């Protein structure tokens, strides 16, 4: 047993650090660390740098341009990026649709889409959830009817993250209504510029436009854009959902966030001494550090088991719950530290922003925004159901 990185792993980590130092713009990093929004351009620039280095497709097989990294290497890469304040890599193309295409797609689909994803030519969005189908995904209603060599899609998807920037979307559609709900679903790739596709912004309670509704109104999709067999889309959907969710614990993000908060709390003078020296604030920091250490080590144990050939299954549900709980608690502390300065709604208003310290503007919006962590990506209640069934046998 050895909980430390070995020589090779340390060398790899240093290589990652050097790459980040050379390629991550300071302003991008500063904004990410300060919980401020980054532009699509900043995201694309970072993904471009990774693409050029060959480090973008960490989960793909080498033959398609993947890195071939081991679980530990992936972990090191992700944590280093997060701690350094790199923008997150959007998973919709790279880690969602790509693995499905690699596993179930035709040669033509592989040849066309995979390089475009690697080169950041397409911005993919996800079309899974519907207003009436959240946790119970298979009850989806969006229809696709075959018409010659096209499918005609009608229906609605929701919670489409950053769909306003996307030009491609993968959607689960119902192609047969006469069978069991899982058996009539197909997996389609849709060009968002096709006539009949409409994107409507959904504003979240923090005032942010991050998610969208996507409406399909007689949208004609070439039959070649079907992935896998017709009516077998549920297989693709499940494969995508169970696809290795590395970094689900978000330890690096939490570490960066907590470090940022400690700096803030050390700089705020309240009642003659820094806030970090006030007993209750200090205790919350210490509690969070302890919780975060527990998540980090639980994550490392899972990574190490994967390295040894174990397949992380429902364990990732533990990590999802533990990791999101810590991230949410950190954001709660952030709001608490901001104090009265959390009140002005300054996220988008420069005039009000001038009334408070620079650190404070994103506090309340971040807190409210991160409520999503326990809801999206399989709510924490669903994760508990999974654990109860798969691990506990209840």
């Amino acid at each position: 047993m050895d909980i430390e990185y070995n020589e090779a792993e340390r060398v790899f980590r240093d290589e990652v650090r050097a790459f980040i130092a050379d390629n991550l713009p300071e302003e991008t990093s500063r904004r990410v660390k300060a919980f401020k929004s980054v532009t699509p351009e900043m995201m694309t620039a970072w993904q471009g740098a990774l693409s050029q280095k060959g480090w973008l497709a960490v989960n793909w097989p080498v033959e398609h341009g993947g890195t071939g990294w081991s679980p530990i290497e992936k972990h090191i890469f992700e944590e280093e990026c997060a701690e350094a304040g790199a923008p997150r890599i959007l998973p919709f193309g790279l880690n969602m649709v790509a693995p499905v295409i690699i596993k179930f797609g035709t040669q033509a689909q592989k040849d066309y889409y995979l390089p475009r994803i690697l080169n950041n030519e397409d911005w993919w969005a996800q079309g899974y959830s519907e207003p009436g189908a959240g946790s119970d995904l298979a009850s989806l209603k969006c229809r696709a009817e075959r018409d010659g060599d096209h499918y005609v899609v009608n229906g609605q998807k929701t919670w489409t993250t950053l769909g306003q920037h996307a030009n491609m979307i993968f959607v689960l559609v119902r192609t047969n209504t006469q069978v069991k709900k899982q058996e009539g679903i197909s997996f389609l790739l849709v060009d968002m510029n096709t006539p009949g596709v409409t994107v409507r912004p959904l504003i979240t309670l923090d005032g942010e436009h991050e998610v969208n509704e996507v409406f399909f109104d007689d949208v004609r999709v070439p039959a070649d854009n079907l992935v896998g067999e017709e009516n077998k889309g549920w297989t693709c959907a499940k494969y995508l959902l169970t696809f290795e969710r590395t970094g689900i614990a978000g330890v690096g993000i939490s570490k960066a966030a907590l470090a940022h908060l400690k700096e803030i709390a050390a700089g705020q003078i309240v009642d003659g001494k820094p806030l970090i020296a006030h007993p209750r604030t200090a205790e919350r920091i210490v509690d969070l550090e302890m919780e975060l250490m527990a998540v980090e080590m639980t994550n490392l144990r899972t990574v190490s088991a994967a390295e040894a050939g174990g397949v992380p299954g429902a364990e990732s549900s533990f990590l999802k719950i533990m990791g999101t709980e810590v991230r949410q608690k950190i954001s709660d502390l952030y709001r608490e530290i901001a104090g009265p300065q959390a009140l002005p709604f300054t996220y988008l208003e420069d005039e009000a922003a001038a009334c408070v310290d620079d650190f404070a503007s994103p506090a309340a919006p971040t807190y409210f925004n991160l409520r999503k962590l326990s809801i999206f990506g399989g709510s924490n209640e669903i994760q508990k159901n999974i654990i109860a069934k798969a691990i506990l046998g209840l």
Partner: protein
Amino acid sequence: MDFSYSDEQRMLADLVTRVVADHYAFDAREGYIASPEGHSPDVWAQFAELGLLAVPFSETAGGFDGGGAELMVVAEGLGRGLVVEPYLGRIVLAGCFLDGALDDAAKADTLEPLITGEARWALAVHEPAGRYDPYWIETTAVKDGQGWHLSGRKATVLAGDSADHLIVIARTSGDNPAQSGLSAFWVDADTAGVRRTGYTTIDGQRAAEIWLDDVAVDADALIGVEDEAGTALEYALDRGVVALCAEAAGAMEIACDLTLDYLKERKQFGVPIGSFQALQHRMVDMRMNLEKVRSLTLWAACSLDGDATERRQRLASAKTMVGTAGRKLAEEAIQLFGGMGMMDESSVAHYAKRIIMIDHYLGDANFHKDRLLRMLAEESVALASGKADRAA
């Protein structure tokens, strides 16, 4: 002991409920917030007409002579409707301060325009350096011949964006954070040297950041007695805390109702999600948190005019409970709503925001718990010396 409403209290509750029902539909409220005033002057005029603006003031001041219970009844109703009218800033804080600071002869005349809804005043007390401490006042008032010169900065002045007059608290003697040595001054918002930035808060209220740069005012700008504003300040802030707690209780009640309805309506896997036992138990926990806030708010409201130690303990307990139980309830409301709870177009999201952000006004749970801890420390000394007495 009798917890039922008096006829007058029931009438008040009905009035507020009616105004809210008539004028505070979700879309209407969104409109008020987006408007330049940040609230509805029409609704405000109705408040005045119905006598709601007189509720917390003493009879001498021409008020309804409502005690804490009446204030609670009104504020609960405002909370249920997520009302964004400047009741807290103009009436409870500015108004009650004047009611507490002025001598009896002056009260009625002074407060009349507030009660009729014409006056737009704000109490400028908190400062960035003091965080939540209302007695940490770095704003100075220097005597200069017949008048005063004020300099300083005021943070998150409620209703301060729309105020034509400010009641500015300044330190005229003593050291921070002493309650004594504070004085209050009338300042016309247009006086040279006053600069302000108004804004909407994340929970839909209006406030302003105000800078005073050597602002000259006349001798008669002094409100009440020099160096003694601290007492009226406590009087006003105590009522502000009761109003906030009651508003939180009202908002929490509706957040519970909305969540319960959603649990009954929303179906997953072919059944209402309210049939899942884990969610049922969490809904019960939400209700329990509501009951705790209701109980402590009631206690605080009914203690405003009683023994000082009891009053302070009950107020601090209520506000602390709002901060903790309120947050838990609001977070659970969002979580049980799932994605819908995250949406700006869902009313529950706005209830959750208001409930959680109420912790950031007039002292958060940490601030008020520190007060409780100081009271415990005083009591401990008594306990220890009591022990010593017995041992001796």
